[in-house]
């Protein structure tokens, strides 16, 4: 625990952000940290005179450790699966038996699956660059290793079987694949609609939080029943992909993703309830009426 005593003259309308940069100027090694008063963390936008301080103020520091920007993490963790899957699709050497190198699968569902998988991750990359507005600038550095292992590892595991020379197409053939594709596309559009709706809640450069509501877009009407429909649609997309490929590793990936998204959805739902007294009571975190 560090104890600093300062004798700075600060205007009452100074923000926490300004105080932090004043501190950083004199103590250069401290650049990413959080300030606390009475156990509550402070945002950069908070103004000094609105805080519970008198003529002197006592701030507590928490060093957040090595950080990395959310955008960097997202771009890295999504670019991996895109490229890795394609390596398996094109049957790059040293993956399968040499006689299959650079051949393509004879099953058209395998080509379809590659298109869907690639589309999904291209969409995510573009959303990261142009759609999402992040609340936090950074996250702990170790997250990038954890996240990339998860995304890249699962992508390789799924892609290995789908593009394998001994791959078996779905049991119910064209019917199954058509249904799966419909579900997948429906949920991709849905997921994108939700991302746009959430972006429009927040003016550029701001970090305000508002309750999301259904818009004119029918894909957003699910907000009536669910707090985090982006996760609902994401689950739907992967269920579609599982049905399309009939591949156990894909089912496993869907399950693990669902568990993680449920944890996030519950957390978000709880913070909505805490922050907004008039939050709609009909909504569930991720699955209408169920979860």
């Amino acid at each position, binding site marked *: 625990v560090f104890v600093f005593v300062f004798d700075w003259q600060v205007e009452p309308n100074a923000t926490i952000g300004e105080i932090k940069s004043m501190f950083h100027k004199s103590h250069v090694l401290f650049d990413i940290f959080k300030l606390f008063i009475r156990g509550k963390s402070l945002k950069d936008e908070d103004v000094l005179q609105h805080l519970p301080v008198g003529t002197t103020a006592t701030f507590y520091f928490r060093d957040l450790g090595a950080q990395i920007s959310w955008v960097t993490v997202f771009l890295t963790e999504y670019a991996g699966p895109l490229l890795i899957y394609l390596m398996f699709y094109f049957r790059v050497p040293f993956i399968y038996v040499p006689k299959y190198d650079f051949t393509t699968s004879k099953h058209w569902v395998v080509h379809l699956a590659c298109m869907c998988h690639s589309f999904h991750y291209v969409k995510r990359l573009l959303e990261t660059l142009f759609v999402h507005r992040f609340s936090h600038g950074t996250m702990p550095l170790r997250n990038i290793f954890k996240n990339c292992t998860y995304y890249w590892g699962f992508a390789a595991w799924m892609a290995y*079987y*789908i593009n*394998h020379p*001994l*791959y*078996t197409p779905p*049991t119910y053939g064209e019917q199954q694949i058509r249904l799966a594709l419909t579900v997948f596309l429906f949920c991709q559009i849905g997921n994108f609609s939700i991302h746009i709706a959430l972006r429009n809640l927040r003016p550029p450069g701001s970090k305000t939080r508002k309750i999301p509501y259904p818009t004119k877009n029918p894909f957003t009407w699910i907000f009536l029943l669910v707090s985090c429909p982006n996760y609902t649609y994401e689950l739907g997309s992967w269920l579609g992909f599982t049905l399309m*490929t*009939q*591949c*156990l*590793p894909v089912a496993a990936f869907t399950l693990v993703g669902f568990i993680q998204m449920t944890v996030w959805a519950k957390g978000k739902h709880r913070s909505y309830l805490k922050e907004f007294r008039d939050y709609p009571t009909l909504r569930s975190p991720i699955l209408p009426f169920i979860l």
Partner: protein
Amino acid sequence: MPSSLKARTSGTTELLYESFLSRWLVIAVGLVRAYLARGSYHGLYYSIEKPLKYFQTGALLEILHCAVGIVPSSVVLTGFQVMSRVFLTWAVTHSVREVQSEDSVLLFVVAWTVTEIIRYSFYTFSLLNHLPYLIKWARYTFFFVLYPMGVAGELLTIYAALPYVQKTGLYSITLPNNYNFSFDYHTFLILVMISYIPLFPQLYFHMIRQRKKVLGHVEEYSKVE
């Protein structure tokens, strides 16, 4: 852990540990008797096969104990240890008949037996608030030899099982199949063996640290006096 819960469960827990203790004593006695009867230590696994299976599997309860808080050990470490023992008992020794007559099996069975007898005595006496220093000392000292002994026995057993697993394709799934999935138990066993490299030192050093904490106090007091 809330003291009310502790009071309610301590009676049953003591009985439970005494029963666990006596079971491992049964195994120990079984081993000794079989050895004396046969005059050699080959094939002693068969004389204690059934009790070993049931008691080691029963140890799954221990994970629950840690989770509920009756025992102060960590859930993760205990869970891991119990899982690895259950894996060795059922998925290796029971499943691959050919390794059951290996000496390495005896090595880990003896290591486990001695460890568990000391450990359950420790827990039982602790709960009764009458812990002889000897038991505490033994619990935090014998592991120096018993851990490596057990690990050696386990690794040698898995290694011995490898050729039979590969030959028979035990627990393995091959392509093509309707769920587009495959699993090679032979490779899996090799990965398990490799995982001992990062994991065993962590457990070993954890025990050494625990030893300093638990036995260190007594040495300090005696210095003061």
